[in-house]
């Protein structure tokens, strides 16, 4: 397995010295995670592709500036992605929004293909509510559920303590629950 031989520190050093093959290894390792993050933040396949490519372009151009200060490389990448997505939302706010229903459905990992063909109305409604949350709360939910990260890992990316992440998560759940109640959305699909 390639993971056994993957020494991130060594690969990062080689990439920082301009070795494109080393950066290719980092790309292979993180492409799925960054794409997932950008895809859920934008809800748009084409923009997700464009922004993901730009995240890696920017990372490649500035990898010499990356210094390991206890922050994982993934956190650095997520911060680049977060900034680019924020710029994208700012530019987009001047233009018309694409409804979340228009978002193409991509195959989920470990899922039955037929499940992907139909995204339930409840999931659509929940996604719509998530996209109305403030950006940092969206980040938190994506990192927690899509990336399956712990509060400590999320804290490293968001620049918050583990306790602050836990508290923010709880407040986010309460806010979502209230919005679901306000809009009378039935998540049980009955």
């Amino acid at each position, binding site marked *: 397995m390639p993971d056994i031989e993957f020494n991130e520190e060594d690969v990062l050093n080689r990439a920082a010295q301009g070795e494109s093959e080393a950066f290719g290894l980092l790309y292979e390792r993180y492409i799925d995670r960054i794409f997932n993050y950008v895809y859920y933040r934008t809800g748009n396949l084409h923009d997700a592709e464009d922004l993901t490519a730009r995240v890696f372009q920017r990372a490649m151009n500035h990898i010499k500036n990356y210094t390991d200060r206890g922050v994982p490389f993934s956190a650095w990448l997520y911060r680049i992605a977060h900034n680019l997505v924020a710029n994208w939302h700012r530019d987009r706010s001047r233009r018309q929004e694409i409804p979340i229903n228009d978002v193409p459905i*991509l195959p989920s*990992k470990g899922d039955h293909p037929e499940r992907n063909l139909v995204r339930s109305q409840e999931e659509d409604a929940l996604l719509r509510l998530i996209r109305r949350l403030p950006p940092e709360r969206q980040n938190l939910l994506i990192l927690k559920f899509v990336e399956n990260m712990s509060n400590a890992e999320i804290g490293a990316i968001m620049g918050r303590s583990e306790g602050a992440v836990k508290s923010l998560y709880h407040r986010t759940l309460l806010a979502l629950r209230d919005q679901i109640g306000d809009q009378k959305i039935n998540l049980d699909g009955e």
Partner: protein
Amino acid sequence: MKKSRKEKTGNEDQLFALEEHLADTLKPITPPSELVVRMRDRIRVPQREEIASRIDSWQRLFLVFGGVMSGFVVIVTIARAFFYFVGRK
């Protein structure tokens, strides 16, 4: 007392159910392979910094500048000659 405990349990149940729905909705997705290849190709395109680094030495910059100026002079000379021969008629 019993009522508040019941409410608390109800709240926790609601949040637990919401977490389950979130887990069902926010699932990791696999980017299509052609998209991954396309993005990889895009990343290999030389960036501004790379282009700038190619002309960082003054000798090379001088050559490029000289080349551009020479080309410009040739184009102006041809244009003047063309105007001289065609414009006179």
